[in-house]
């Protein structure tokens, strides 16, 4: 996972997250916490006609949790709710250590960089936080 910290694109998501802000009129909002790390995250979505028109998050945590949230928000913006749910399930499966197809990794795009976190149990929760929050929100 060391390569995450040396990846300029990944670290850029932590230092300059494009999707970290409070939205004006979200249609969906959900909180996620990592009690063991103290990470807290609020995910907001604006969904219109089954499509995620806008996604953003606020909160605080380690670089892994913050960058992962930013990458996720970027990925799901413009996708249908069903597609976002599929992507979050793919991501969570990848983090659990499941082997995905080449196509799946392509669909996850930048998020696929977090694959090696599965070898680092202490950091899995950090990488998962935003995605679990999304999954929880879409399952409700």
């Amino acid at each position, binding site marked *: 996972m060391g390569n995450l910290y040396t990846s300029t694109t990944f670290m850029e998501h932590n230092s300059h997250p494009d999707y970290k802000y409070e939205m004006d009129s979200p249609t969906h909002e959900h909180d996620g916490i990592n009690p063991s*790390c103290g*990470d807290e995250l609020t995910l907001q979505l604006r969904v219109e006609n089954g499509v995620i028109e806008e996604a953003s998050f606020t909160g605080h945590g380690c*670089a892994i949790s913050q960058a992962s949230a930013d990458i996720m928000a970027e990925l799901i913006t413009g996708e249908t709710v069903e597609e976002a749910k599929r992507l979050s399930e793919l991501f969570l499966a990848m983090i659990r250590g499941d082997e995905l197809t080449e196509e799946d990794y392509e669909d996850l795009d930048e998020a696929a960089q977090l694959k090696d976190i599965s070898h680092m149990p202490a950091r899995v929760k950090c990488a998962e936080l935003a995605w679990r929050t999304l999954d929880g929100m879409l399952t409700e």
Partner: protein
Amino acid sequence: MIDIEANPYKADFPLLAGKPEITFLDSGATAQRPACALDAQRSFYETMNANPLRGLYSLSVEATEAIAQVRAQIARLLGAVDERGRAAARDIVFTHNASESLNLVAKSFAPLVLEPGDEVAITIMEHHSNLIPWQQACRAAGATLVYLYPEQDGTITDEEIAAKVGPRTKIVAAGHVSNVMGVENPIAKLADAVHAHGGYLVVDGAQSVPHMTVDVRALGADFFAFSAHKALGPMGIGVLWGRHELLEQMPPMLTGGEMIDSVTEQDAVWAPVPEKFEAGTQDAAGIYATGAALTYLTETVGYEAVAEREAALVAYTMERLAELPYIGIIGPAEAARHHGVISFNVRGIHPHDVASILDMSGVCIRAGHHCAQPLLTWLGVENLACCRASLAFYNDKSDVDRFVDGLATVWSTFNA
């Protein structure tokens, strides 16, 4: 002056000798093991393996004798000796870890003395293992859990003791040395305060036994717990020492084999202390290895050398950390009060990121809440987490240099 550049101990530790790329600064979580302790574990199974206590043949007797000797060794180590200097071996109970030892006191002893409205006082610096058992005991008895708060440098003042330990206090439970702040708590003063009101003192020695001489009589402890694995021994061996008359009154927490004198269809008579508390087959090889580890710690190395070397290493680490303006130390400013433990934060960088980046250069530190969430909440540290480097006598100057250089890399990773 101690030469921390030289390291006469590293060769005794197979993991450290075999992995020179590793800088191990997490001894507060678990120590490394010297070869003699690993050899003892193996030698038990190779030369005296039999179920202790039960057998009537010489092999089993030998195993039983080996355990009895470690019991006596630990009693002497803790200063649990009678007026004639004889070890109170029967007052040493083997458990699986310090947590279990403390649970045994909270579950078997506390109900004998706690009444509704009574108080149990602990410090906010307690490890969860000396905190949650008291939450549970208080809840069960209708008692109140009261906290002693230190000054910012970790000192618990006489005023705080006087304010929190009073006529309602039946039990004070305190860590001998804090696993986060590194400070030694005023155990003898806590003992005087609680004894003045007829209460009892429980000491969590998990972070003191690896570093310093312990004398339960001088401390005024009624119970003292520690884990072998933090003191160079194997994982899975804990110790509880208790005053004999208190252990006598306590019911067993676990029942079953080897803890009875006699059993009928409807009843059982407990074995005497300490067997009463040791249901089922014990990890005899682990206990034997614990004896070898403690002999290494106290005789081969010696507490004096441990203290001198750890103080020199901590002083050097604090000196080097002072070069980095973005490091904030948690706990006392004086190196001598740290007992190998240095907790800190890197400004604006989450402790988990610090640990992960240090790991890239082989430096192992702990990051998180250190099983002391109420303390980190009280300290008000960001993310309820901090970093902790914990040193032992088997570390050297190059370990500290790699650690500090690693922190510079951590900083530049986020502040390029």
